[in-house]
């Protein structure tokens, strides 16, 4: 492998270094999240009322960037894609879990990662959300023997979209880029529509 990436997978450095890298990557992650306003529940929740679609823009931009990066680094022979971790698919638990998660997301206005940014910047609701998350994980942990069978059901392993649709990897990549750009155009249109006041808007702090 010319490039030798992922470097940790090829034994280029050990666990200690990997933990340092974790912190550094986390710092950059947190930085950009806050820069994008994701640490602010009011801004974030605008997504679900179609007034401020920053969540969609930010997430989709991140996904597309990393996705293209993975494709082209692999194509250039610099990265061994087969050694990159692909989250496993568990159809039923992930759909049900997603619905529950989404309901919580709209209620709380933050997600696990952004709640840490919110808490870090002094937001009490971020702290409350973190506490809630810990409680939720505990509830799940205690309930897991009972619902374990469902939680482990319908597993499909590292199933990817190209495999599922029978399309080439590159075609799926191109398709997602197209969907993203379409979504961005739609988002801009929705936000412009939201800005045109049907009634006078309050200037709030």
């Amino acid at each position: 492998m010319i490039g030798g990436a992922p470097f940790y997978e090829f034994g280029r450095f050990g666990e200690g270094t990997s933990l340092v890298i974790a912190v550094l990557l986390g710092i950059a992650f947190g930085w950009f999240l806050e820069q994008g306003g994701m640490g602010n529940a009011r801004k974030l929740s605008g997504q679900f009322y179609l007034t401020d679609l920053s969540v969609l823009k930010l997430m989709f931009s991140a996904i597309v960037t990393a996705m293209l990066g993975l494709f082209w680094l692999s194509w250039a022979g610099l990265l061994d894609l087969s050694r990159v971790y692909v989250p496993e698919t568990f159809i039923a638990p992930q759909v049900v879990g997603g619905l529950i998660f989404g309901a919580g997301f709209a209620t709380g206005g933050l997600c696990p990662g952004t709640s840490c940014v919110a808490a870090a910047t002094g937001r009490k609701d971020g702290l409350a959300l973190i506490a809630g998350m810990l409680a939720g994980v505990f509830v799940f942990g205690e309930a897991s023997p009972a619902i374990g069978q469902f939680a482990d059901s319908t597993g499909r392993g590292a199933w990817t979209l190209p495999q599922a649709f029978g399309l080439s990897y590159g075609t799926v990549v191109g398709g997602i880029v197209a969907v993203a750009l379409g979504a961005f155009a739609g988002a801009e249109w929705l936000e412009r529509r939201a800005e045109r006041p049907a009634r006078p808007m309050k200037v709030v702090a």
Partner: protein
Amino acid sequence: MSDVATTAAGQPLGTAASSRAEVTTTTRVQVRREAAPYASPYVAGVGIGVVLLLAFVLMGRGLGASGAFSSVVAAAVSTAAPSHAAGNEFYSRYLSDGAANPLRDWLVLEIIGVVIGGLASAVLAGRVRWTTERGAGITDRRRLVNAFVGGTAMGVGAKLARGCTSGLGLTGGATLSVGSWLFVIAAFVGAYATAPLLRRAWR
């Protein structure tokens, strides 16, 4: 980095209410300047994408968040009731050799970084405030209850799905994992279905 518009008298526009807030909470105000505008979500998103890509290139894995919460809970339960934790398949997954040191967990350290990075960004942009983000339609207390309840639901949902918007949405999204895309779609459906019930909370 402050390019906030001002009135002719030099008063920053759009922040009249926050000035009022500052008057009543002067002792606790940490910011020295008015809040700078957020970055473009596209640019911030690409920035996160690069960080995510770096994680893949360096570690062969993506970013995450909910896993850190699991590690913390598993460690806490293991400390309080070791045999119970060891006997529970879910907790054991986050414990190695029976004892968990969350500080050696990759995701926990990443989250520590997120806290540092988020704070740094907010400090430089003048966006640190000890406050509760809520709409005018509800009280602080109500908002905090909502946040806790929402967090609980997300904790359950994330563990059921084995990830959250970071671990599945970003990492799974970029690696084209089917289950991750299903999760994200389901999450948005769940959110849009719930949002109308909470309209007053955000106005």
